[in-house]
């Protein structure tokens, strides 16, 4: 029996060898005779239990003598844990700062627990992502939409549909944040919004003007339309709420949902930000880069990417009048830009018919592809699929930033030349606006299958929407907080001494460390003549400097002394004759 105790009990029942199993049977038999053994076993496991938390009860016996085959809580896969890791663990403060150390240890334990719980919850998410996999030696891009619709059931098939709107095209489009609602804007003035899943029309109108771009605002109740001259805001009944005359000749728009900012790029080269919660222009930046018709926003840090005709892409925040970054991406103009959800990758296409993938954290090109026709519109889905429109063909690529892809994942020919592509959030759907109307394409594996009910809930009721709207407005992020790193606010600000001193001066209203100006006392009987005063001033003129000089002189003398002593020692050491010196020439 003694031998069996020394072997560590296996954590899982399938890990144990046959011998163990046999011994187990023996144990059961002997258990009645020898009562000491289980007790010994228990004391041993207790020691281990302290270190391993709940998982200590590996060899714990129940009264029947059986051991738990699944001791402790189930392990969480490392990959899942990594997904929920926030920041990196720093070093613990040294022991003398025991209070801070204690706080850090406890907060790290809490965040570890949260991470683990999140990872566990992630395993239980109800929905799986879609996929499309061809058999060997066969391309998924040859599978047409009709085939897919035939293969899947009728509700899924209903997601592929065409709207034939040949009169007022080509069309720009936008999906709302929840993915329920679709907004279409035809170049010749036709604007319509609909609940595309139930195909319910919310409003339809013709603004009798050129429409450059359309955009949903924070909810499906409001949308913005960039028309020939001004920017208009309509509600979902099609009633014109605002005509914003400060925003003219807008070509492209982006909405930053957490900041409630509508960023617009105009033909006159202005990048303007409109705070839609209060209706005020935040800032108007003259980019000095000509006509701005290529625009994207980074959903990770709310930075606006503008593409220019000289092949550069510039990054903007409302806090700075110069671009944060200027990247030369293409030879020839930039045609389209897209940024992925995590803010890691940027995909650009240019007039040089190239499609390039950049890592925008390091500003490093990752991949470069050549497309024979060049891509006019780009869009990235939540799960990282890239759609590129070349003429009237929409191609969808998978995993463009990994190993170089040679073939598209899917392809579809639209009826007219493509004017706008947009992946629908939380759905396997790609919306394509083209000259002959609108096509809703089915792209398996495009959308995030599990939504978060408190953030963007496609099934929310009117009441829930109202609730969400109030909460979202309360936590509207101020435009001043937009920067390259959104988590910077939680990092320790190692401000310089000068900065801290400046702040202190501002708080106190005076500089506590400022040298006081020497004002000689007024003396009588002619001793305060200007000459005398100057003389007295001179006496104390360089007092501080004298201290410094005295200190440096002392230091220097000390160093000299040390050096001399060292040399002396060296010389003494050299003076000793060694036995080997006789061989020296």
């Amino acid at each position, binding site marked *: 029996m003694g031998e069996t105790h020394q072997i560590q009990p296996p954590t899982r029942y399938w890990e144990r060898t046959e011998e163990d199993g046999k011994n187990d049977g023996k144990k059961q038999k002997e258990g009645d005779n020898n009562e000491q053994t289980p007790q010994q076993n228990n004391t041993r496991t207790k020691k281990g239990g302290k270190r391993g938390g709940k998982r200590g009860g590996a060899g714990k016996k129940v009264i029947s003598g059986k051991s738990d085959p699944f001791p402790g809580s189930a392990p969480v896969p490392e990959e899942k844990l990594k997904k929920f890791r926030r920041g990196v663990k720093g070093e613990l403060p040294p022991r003398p700062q025991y209070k801070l150390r204690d706080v850090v240890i406890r907060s790290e334990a809490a965040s570890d627990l949260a991470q683990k719980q999140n990872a566990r919850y992630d395993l239980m998410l*109800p929905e799986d992502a879609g996929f499309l996999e061809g058999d060997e030696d066969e391309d998924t891009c040859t599978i047409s939409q009709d085939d897919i619709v035939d293969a899947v059931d009728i509700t899924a098939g209903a997601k592929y549909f065409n709207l034939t709107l040949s009169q007022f095209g080509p069309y720009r489009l936008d999906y709302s944040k929840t993915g329920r609602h679709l907004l279409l804007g035809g170049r010749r003035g036709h604007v319509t919004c609909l609940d595309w899943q139930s195909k319910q029309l919310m409003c339809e109108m013709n603004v009798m003007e050129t429409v450059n771009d359309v955009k949903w605002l924070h909810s499906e109740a409001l949308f913005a339309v960039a028309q020939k001259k001004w920017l208009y805001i309509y509600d979902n009944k099609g009633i014109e709420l605002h005509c914003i005359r400060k925003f003219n000749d807008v070509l492209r728009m982006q909405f930053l949902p957490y900041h409630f900012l509508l960023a617009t790029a105009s033909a006159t080269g202005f990048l303007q930000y409109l705070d839609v919660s209060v209706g005020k222009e935040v800032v108007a930046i003259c980019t000095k880069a000509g006509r701005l018709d290529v625009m994207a926003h980074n959903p990770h840090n709310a930075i606006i990417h503008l593409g220019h005709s000289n092949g550069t892409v510039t990054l903007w925040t409302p806090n700075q009048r110069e671009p944060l970054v200027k990247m030369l991406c293409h030879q020839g103009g930039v045609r389209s830009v897209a940024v992925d959800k995590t803010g890691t990758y940027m995909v650009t296409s240019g007039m040089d018919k190239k499609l390039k993938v950049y890592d925008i954290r390091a500003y490093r090109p990752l991949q470069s592809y050549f497309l024979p026709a060049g891509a006019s519109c780009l869009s990235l889905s939540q799960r990282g699929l890239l759609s590129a429109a070349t003429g009237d063909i929409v191609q969808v690529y998978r995993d463009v930033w990994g190993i170089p892809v040679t073939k598209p994942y899917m392809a579809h020919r639209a009826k007219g030349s493509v004017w706008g592509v947009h992946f629908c959030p939380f*759905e396997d759907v790609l919306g394509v606006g083209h000259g002959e109307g609108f096509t809703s394409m089915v792209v398996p594996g495009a959308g995030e299958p*599990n939504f978060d009910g408190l953030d963007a809930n496609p099934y929310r009721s009117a009441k829930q929407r109202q609730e969400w709207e109030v909460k979202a407005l*309360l936590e509207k992020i101020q435009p001043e907080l937009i920067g390259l790193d959104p988590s910077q606010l939680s990092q320790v600000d190692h401000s310089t001494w000068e900065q801290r001193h400046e702040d202190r001066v501002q708080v106190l209203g005076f500089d506590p460390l400022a040298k006081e100006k020497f004002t000689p006392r007024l003396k009588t009987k002619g001793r305060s003549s200007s000459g005398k005063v100057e003389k007295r001033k001179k006496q104390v003129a360089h007092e501080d400097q004298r201290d410094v000089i005295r200190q440096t002189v002392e230091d220097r003398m000390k160093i000299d002394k040390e050096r001399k002593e060292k040399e002396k020692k060296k010389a003494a050491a050299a003076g000793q004759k060694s036995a080997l010196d006789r061989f020296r020439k």
Partner: protein
Amino acid sequence: MVSPKIFGNVLSGRCKRNQQTHFRQIRADIALNIRNPDDYVRETKLDIQRVPRNYDPSLHPFEVPREYTRALNATKLERVFAKPFLASLDGHRDGVNCMAKHPKSLSTMLSGSCDGELKVWNLTKRECVRTLQAHEGFVRGMVVRFCGTSFFTVGDDKTIKQWKMETPGYGEEEEPLNTILGKSVFTSIDHHQKEGVFVTCGQQVDIWDEQRSSPIRSFSWGVDSFSCVRFNPVETELLASCASDRSIVLYDMREATPLKKVIMSMRSNTLCWNPMEAYHFTCSNEDYNLYTYDMRYLDKPFTVHMDHVSAVLDVDYSPTGKEFVSASFDKTIRIFPKDSGHSREVYHTKRMQHVISIKWSSDNKYILSASDEMNIRLWKANAAEKLGLLAPREKAAVNYSQKLKEKFQHHPQIRRISHHRHLPKSIYSQTKELRVMKEARRRKERNVRKHSKPGSMPVVTEKEKHVVTVVK
């Protein structure tokens, strides 16, 4: 009930197609994510809405700026809802000199005034339930026995009286259970936590048995008068007292002589033991400061608590031992965390005069202050706290915003808002004046040090400055 399997989360099928040009069969596996709306909306109107969660960080961008915004809002709301004043208990006909908590009943509180009148209050009803003329002259101190059935008072008429807690019946007279006539005026009284022993102080510190009319032990250490004496709540045989020769003296009841004393630069008025870390006590001093001492190391206070602009008259710990409240001659009450040098909160009203006595209620929620102008005031210990029963969601929200405020407390904007307090003009200007004086003193010291022999002017820290000696 329809099984979700039938509709299926993932619908898959085989797709076959003949390409006419190549006569090649193409096969593929297809799956689309299709949610069944029935899984995501409530079944009937009587249900609550379903809220599926996905905690993926990439679905929740800007979490830090959003948390910061929430913290900022929470801080602002805290200042908006900071209404600490609850009630004023009036009825005394002279300044209220002392108060006592009931050890068993949260709603009962006793107060004694300068004209010898004693009142028993019901705090929930905010009314006086009993009034009696306890002494001639001041009621100097009072304490409720640990069992809560009787209480002791001392007064200027050199007597110690024991009273029943129960109100006398109809026709009965208000008479003390016991009266002990002392030789001199008593200034303070405290009762032992477990035994029938109490301690008074006046010209000396006397320990009395409840059954006897003369003290069982008397301590004096070359001092002519004591102002306050307190039993240690944990080491129940230990005592501490404040004496008029600027000293704080520690005693062991079982020994014949005092243990040790520390002499400070100015006189301490009262002291209070920390109920949780009972080796710590805090004394309120005439030099506008409070000092927390570790009774084992008296040569240096553990913390110096500054902020008052006049003499501090009374101090009381919260039952959690994490904070204490102090009453001052400058007409304010301040709440200090036990290990912080500055107060986290200041309470004042236009009508409140010099605050003489202060108590923190045993449920850690309220503060009672007795002041010169005959009133007792009831305050919330947490100014912005919502009183009453909280719903679980409300409680969770409060905890969440509390944690956020803690997380972002050092951000300048949040710190500015949370630290801002409106002060009466006199106190505001006095604080400024004190700061100028302190700065001038420091400057002078610096200059003296600069012009004297190096090492002859050692740097004395703020903690060391106020202790003169420790005598054992």
